[in-house]
């Protein structure tokens, strides 16, 4: 119930954004939503499953490149098709490397995902005929439900039809994730996080549960990546560099690990924080690092934890 109210609040906030916030902040919200979608997936894996991946930027990049290759190189403009292919491609890659990575749960899993992420990164560099090398590929404006929107400017497209489209996708993906984490599957995933051996003896195929979570998280990341690519207008290899994966984890922690609203709260605060810092100091990295350190020390449950903590204290 509380969740439903919070979600309604966030949704109405996002729906009101284009008319309340200026153009600029509205364009900022698209990457925020894109990250939220991707992080819904990563949160499933890391927050609920306890598996810290240091390579998930790779799956966002897969989404971005799927959209770029389809739209720019193959002329498939339909965003629905692009999303579908992105999800399939990412899911397939995850299904393959998941077989290797998921044999371990602790720091070794992190290292393996990092290694695969970097292999993918160097793949993007090497096969420049396909991927455009270090400059990446530009992403053409997609069509939405078969409509082409060529008459309006790119910004108008982004804050107009694309915004609503993305909001719709987010709504759907969020609802699906809300169900997943509260399903028996979500329970089993968390159980495996808390005690792997015990969970196996409760008849749960721990590997399979984690495997499904891994593939799902990759699919979510691909959707986020494809949306992000449209708002940037390009897919570039930097999106798959390990520091990007680090940022993704940063955002989840910032929002609140293993909490359904963590991703949206995290990416909102992260983007706004970074925006404010970048506009005000050239040493914004230092400030971001300091902010991260402070959050880790003083708000281990992230901003959501702070908020709920306030509520609880009031009562």
């Amino acid at each position, binding site marked *: 119930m509380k969740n439903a109210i919070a979600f309604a609040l966030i949704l109405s906030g996002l729906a009101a954004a284009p008319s309340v916030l200026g153009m600029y902040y509205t364009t900022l919200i698209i990457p925020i939503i894109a990250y939220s979608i991707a992080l819904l997936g990563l949160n499933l894996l890391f927050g609920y499953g306890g598996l810290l991946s240091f390579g998930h930027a790779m799956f966002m990049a897969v989404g971005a490149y799927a959209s770029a290759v389809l739209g720019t190189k193959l002329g498939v403009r339909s965003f629905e098709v692009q999303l579908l292919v992105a999800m399939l491609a990412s899911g397939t890659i995850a299904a393959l490397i998941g077989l290797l990575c998921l044999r371990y749960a602790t720091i070794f899993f992190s290292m393996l995902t990092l290694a695969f992420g970097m292999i993918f990164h160097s793949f993007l560099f090497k096969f420049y005929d396909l991927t455009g090398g270090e400059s990446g590929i530009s992403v053409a404006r997609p069509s939405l439900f078969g409509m082409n929107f060529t008459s309006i400017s790119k910004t108008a497209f982004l804050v107009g039809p694309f915004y609503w489209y993305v909001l719709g996708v987010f709504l759907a993906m969020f609802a699906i994730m809300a169900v997943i984490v509260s*399903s*028996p599957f979500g329970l*089993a995933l*968390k159980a495996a996080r808390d005690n792997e*051996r*015990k969970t196996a003896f*409760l*008849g*749960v195929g721990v590997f399979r*549960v984690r495997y499904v979570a891994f593939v799902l998280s990759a699919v979510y990341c691909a959707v986020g990546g494809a949306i992000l690519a449209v708002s940037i207008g390009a897919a570039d290899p930097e999106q798959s560099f390990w520091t990007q994966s680090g940022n993704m984890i940063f955002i989840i922690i910032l929002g609140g690990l293993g909490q359904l609203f963590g991703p949206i709260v995290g990416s909102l605060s992260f983007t706004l924080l970074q925006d404010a810092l970048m506009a005000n100091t050239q040493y914004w990295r230092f400030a971001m690092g300091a902010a991260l350190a402070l959050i880790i020390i003083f708000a281990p449950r992230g901003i959501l934890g702070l908020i709920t903590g306030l509520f609880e204290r009031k009562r």
Partner: protein
Amino acid sequence: MEMLLRAFGITKTYGAFTALSDISFDVSKGEVVAVVGPNGAGKTTLVSTLSGLYRPDSGDVIFEGRSVLGLGPAALALRGLARSFQLVTVYPTFTVEDMIAVGAFARAGETFRLWKPACLYKAERDEVREIAAAFGLSHRLSTPCSALSQGEKKLVDIASALTLRPRLMLLDEPTSGISSADKHRIMETLLDAARRCGVESLVLVEHDMDLISRYATRVIGLKAGQIVADMRPDAFFRDPEVIDTLVGKVPHHALG
């Protein structure tokens, strides 16, 4: 009597050290088998081998007519063989209700149902309540496991395994760390709940002779990886030689 589990010729080594050598026995329906023996005799190793956690170097374990080797804990649990560990294992972040539910969903084959919230499964929820009630945990359903006392943790631990409706349960020192005042109550609760949940046989590792004499129907004595005794409790306690090698002097109740 119907045979449930048969182990034969089991040898298990850790490197150069042989923890179990050529162990054979079977467990029939309705038995409560106590495994006793000095520390390091191989009791935990035996339980782990029977429950598919370790693979023996030689020998085989047949459960319900099929070999358990290579099956893995999860599949074995679903086939009706459950176990508990020497140290209590609860999920610190779970409520008692959720913890017990994990096994119920697994047994019902619903672990991979991603599209329906867990709270909507009425049958499983009822079952969880029923089992919790059998363990006297009804008032604890929404308590986080981390806030339970040691004894309650033990109960939740075992209750969660019972949702699998196992035919055979292996319990590794179910009462260690439980205060003497609560031991009998817990043991009785446990046996009663197990019977109600359809458990046909129990194998338990135990050091407490008092409990064994009261509840076991059979005693297997293990020493240095070998079975040195396999008899009914009354015979066991009447055999000074066996008692001496396995238990030493039975201590008496200092406050009794």
